[in-house]
């Protein structure tokens, strides 16, 4: 399948440039610093990785759009998209190939945080099921951010614009939790509306998963979101093709 070919090409492409290494190093440094300094991981004296995972929705907010912005915006700018389209590749295959390559790359970066898992296991007796669930949830959430970023990068030729707009859209999804936002909105929307908004929040959804439970509804939420944005992504590429 062409998706697989594109996937391989894209993924190896990541490691051909220093960009990948820089990204991973920054990711690991940030998660490490946030976990220990802001999350007070050591001071909490709790054998869990809450201090680590709680920042993921906000770290991804900036890191994932940085990854996603070059998915399509660059190709459109350099014209390579035309080249891609002349190959016997269906649009959705290209979209999926690129997407999964980026996701795989993110997964690799995430997996490289394993020293923390070893550390917490050394210090005490953590609930490994909760940690596994949190990693799965984190990847799912990253996937959602990525789908959004990918779609938006397809809408513009300029990577910077892609980045900024992605961050803004992701911000909406990430921060819809805090009620400060709702104060303005609440007077307009009925209760069902508020529930709806709360249910969108990546932060709240991820916190549910961080307890160690993969609720089917949350999984469906993220998967349907990813599907939706990738579908939109495909439509946009198709439209711009002509």
């Amino acid at each position: 399948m062409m998706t697989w070919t594109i996937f391989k090409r894209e993924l190896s492409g990541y490691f051909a440039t220093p960009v990948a290494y820089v990204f991973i190093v920054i990711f690991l440094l940030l998660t490490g610093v946030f976990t220990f300094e802001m999350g007070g991981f050591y001071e909490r004296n709790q054998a869990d990785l809450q201090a680590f995972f709680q920042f993921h929705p906000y770290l991804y907010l900036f890191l994932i759009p940085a990854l996603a912005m070059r998915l399509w915006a660059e190709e459109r700018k350099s014209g390579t998209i035309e080249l891609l389209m002349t190959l016997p590749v269906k649009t959705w295959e290209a979209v999926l190939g690129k997407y999964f390559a980026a996701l795989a790359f993110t997964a690799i970066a995430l997996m490289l945080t394993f020293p923390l898992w070893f550390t917490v296991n050394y210090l005490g007796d953590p609930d490994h099921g909760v940690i596994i669930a949190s990693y799965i949830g984190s990847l799912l959430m990253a996937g959602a951010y990525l789908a959004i970023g990918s779609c938006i990068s397809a809408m513009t030729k300029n990577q910077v614009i892609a980045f900024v707009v992605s961050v803004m859209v992701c911000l909406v999804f990430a921060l819809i939790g805090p009620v400060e936002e709702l104060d303005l909105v609440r007077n307009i929307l009925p209760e069902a509306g508020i529930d709806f908004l709360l249910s969108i929040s990546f932060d709240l959804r991820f916190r549910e998963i961080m307890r160690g439970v993969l609720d089917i509804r949350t999984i469906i939420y993220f998967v349907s979101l990813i599907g939706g944005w990738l579908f939109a992504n495909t439509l946009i590429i198709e439209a711009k093709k002509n």
Partner: protein
Amino acid sequence: MNQKPLLIGGLAITIVLVIAINVVSNMFLSGKRIDLTEEKLFTLTDGTRSIVNNLEEPITLRFYYSRKLAQEEAPGIVPYAIRVEEILQEYAALNPEKLRLEIIEPESFSEEEDEAALAGVEGVPINSAGDLLFLGLHGTNTIDDEEVIPFFRPEREAYLEYDLSELVYNLSVADKPTIGVITELPLSGSTDPMLQFTNPEAVQQPWAIYSQLTEMYEVREVRPVDPIDEEIDVLFVVHPRDLPDASLYHIEQFILAGGRAMIFVDPHAEIEQVPTDPNQPMAAMFASKESKLGKLADMLGVNMIPSQFVGDKENAQRIVIRNDRGLTEPVNYLGYVGLGPDNLADDVVTADLSSQMIFATAGEIFETGNADTNVIPLVYTSQQTDLLNVDDIKVQPNPAELLKQFESEDEVKNFAVRVTGSATSAFPGGLEGSESENHLDESDGDINVIVVSDVDMVYDRFWVQMQNFFGQRVMMQTADNGRFMMNSIENLTGNTDLISIRSRGVSTRPFTVVNELAKKAGEELQAREQELEDRISEINEELQAIQSETQGDTLAMTTELETRIEEAQQEYAEARRELRSVRQNLNKDVESLGSKLRLYNIILLPGLITLLAFIVGLVKAQKRRNALR
């Protein structure tokens, strides 16, 4: 171009589809989840299912939740409130016929709010306007019993299912369990007016544990010389002194028939007030205050070592005594032992005890090996223990002497055990003179008895202070004794379903490594502190001695005194400095571990990857150079 409308149409459909999928899944897939937690904290246990499915009469649960108010003013509690609501719905889904769930959102100053308050559901003022936030449960059954959870505290999340199942269970059972108290001690308050003269310290009020028991259960005083009433569910036996065979027989038969019991014996119960004989005033001091299991030990397969109490050096409590020179000094008293979570088994009744229990001259419980019962230690000492003679502490305990005598046997000793399994009667064939109609030689199923080798731990002084708070007696618990006893009784009265639920939910997982380091440091500090404090008091005494010595000779006094005072002050300052530095270094080990871990996690991998990137870059550059040649 016709692309645009097509594109917009496509996008619109996508949005609608995604929303629709989620709305539908929300409606129909509530409750479907993969619970990856180690203890399956988010899946209803079989115990709960059993309790709910076995409801004979319908019960109604009213869930009061100020949803909008929470969203506005306390959004932090919303996720937990949602969890509570969902778990309640799962309960209702198990048995919709017999379990009715009403969800009520009390508006401020409404009837529903009054209703909630009357029901005992706590409204917490949440903003300056005085609006009350409700997150509680009120349950009723067909005979108007009421059970309330005033407020679902998020800290108690690990016990959410237990609390709910217990509430449902209590509503499903028509009668409160009956506790039969067997004791000669004034647990229920002293009724003997003479005691006021012979022993003014005698307790007039009921003991705190007795008050707690009467709040939750039917409590009756039992005289075991007669067969135990069938209505008694659990026996609470405290300090069985010289019980005749008939009494022991009835207690034993009660246990063999399936009755539960919690028995407290003691090699030396300080609390026992021996009536003083005016002709022999000293006799009372040397009298025995010991209770034994007697023949019950044969049935249970456990016994207590007589006339000796356990000194635990690691867990000895500090008390303040007056030494020979009339000064007060703190000293570790081996007889008073404080046992915390490190000394508790992973059992239902000890699971949520986070402070410590105080035992006073407790004995050692051991397995006799003569019975087929299962003995499970519940509360046990450290390894630094020794058996000491009760006679040594009867009159005037000398903690310092005891410390000198102490020789660690390097053995963990049990203060409380649970005895289960099948048991055999210690009176085979019955007891002459007692009604042996339904005599049991073998237990009917498994017995369940908790034996504790200390009676003093039951008494208020070692775990609770009663204070008067606006005319109401309020209990300030200073140790976990009461909780342990209530847990045990609760466990012994409950059916096996409830017990199986309680055994889950270990809410804290601390850094054991860090705690060990901190503990070691703490012990070191304690030892050094003691040393330095001793030195300081020695210096003080020296100064006093000098003063009294040189009272007469004024000239000599001044010079000598001055020099000695100077020296003493220097020593004193030095000692205090040392003490300070010991305290400061207390956290040294813990901190250095923290730094090491930071380095390992934050720098190590990124560093390695950077290195890798360089190497890859170099290799590539090399390849390029080779290709160009």
